């Protein structure tokens, strides 16, 4: 699931345009982003608060199994890293 401050409408456009099939969730006031301590204050267009990039693999019990916190937002988790991490899931 992908999570950002974008509205459901913006995420729908992105999802359709790119042909993504996974779920996109909208956190317009960055409440969940704050709860996960991922807020990047003022980094969006016009000084809007946005999320820093981060990926979490959560197991069926809701426990974090793998985290990827990039140090450079040009660098994101690669599919093969996630697939390797997902092998640990029961």
């Amino acid at each position, binding site marked *: 699931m992908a999570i950002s401050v974008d509205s459901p409408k913006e995420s729908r456009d992105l999802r359709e345009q790119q042909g993504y099939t996974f779920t996109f969730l909208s956190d317009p006031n960055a409440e969940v982003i704050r709860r996960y301590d991922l807020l990047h204050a003022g980094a969006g267009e016009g000084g809007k608060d946005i999320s820093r990039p*981060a990926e979490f693999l959560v197991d069926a019990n809701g426990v974090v199994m793998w985290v990827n916190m990039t140090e450079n937002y040009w*660098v994101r988790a690669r599919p093969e890293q996630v697939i390797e991490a997902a092998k640990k899931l029961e």
Partner: protein
Amino acid sequence: MKRFNWQIWAGFLLTFGGLLTFPLFFVRFPSTRDFPWVNLLLVALAIVLLVIGVKRAFQPGRSKLAKALAAVLTLLSLAAIGLFVFSAFILARQLPASRGAPQVGQKAPDFTLKDTSEKQVTLSELLSTPINGAKPKGVLLVFYRGYW
């Protein structure tokens, strides 16, 4: 009549080509995006051409116009290169520390958010709802900057 200083123009065009192909093409592949080595290589080649071009323009007998043109094209190129390097290696690293983010072994805080069809999705419910009759194994949460 002095020969056309093609190196200065080639260096200028290669600078912008080398930089613009990043957002237009090379950003799509992790191996050329995470570290933009193809674009840096193109820009390095452009700098070599610019240096040769500037040397030619400042040889004796060249017009003032040729010198001014070489200087302007080189400065524009260097400004664009500087902006790219700043964005890639300094700006992109300005990220919050996020020390309070959930760690491996910790429970991921539960949440409810709207999906693209305005339907409420709750993490804990998602993890306990069977998919095609089987219990889900987990979920990947991808927080991203968004397109604002």
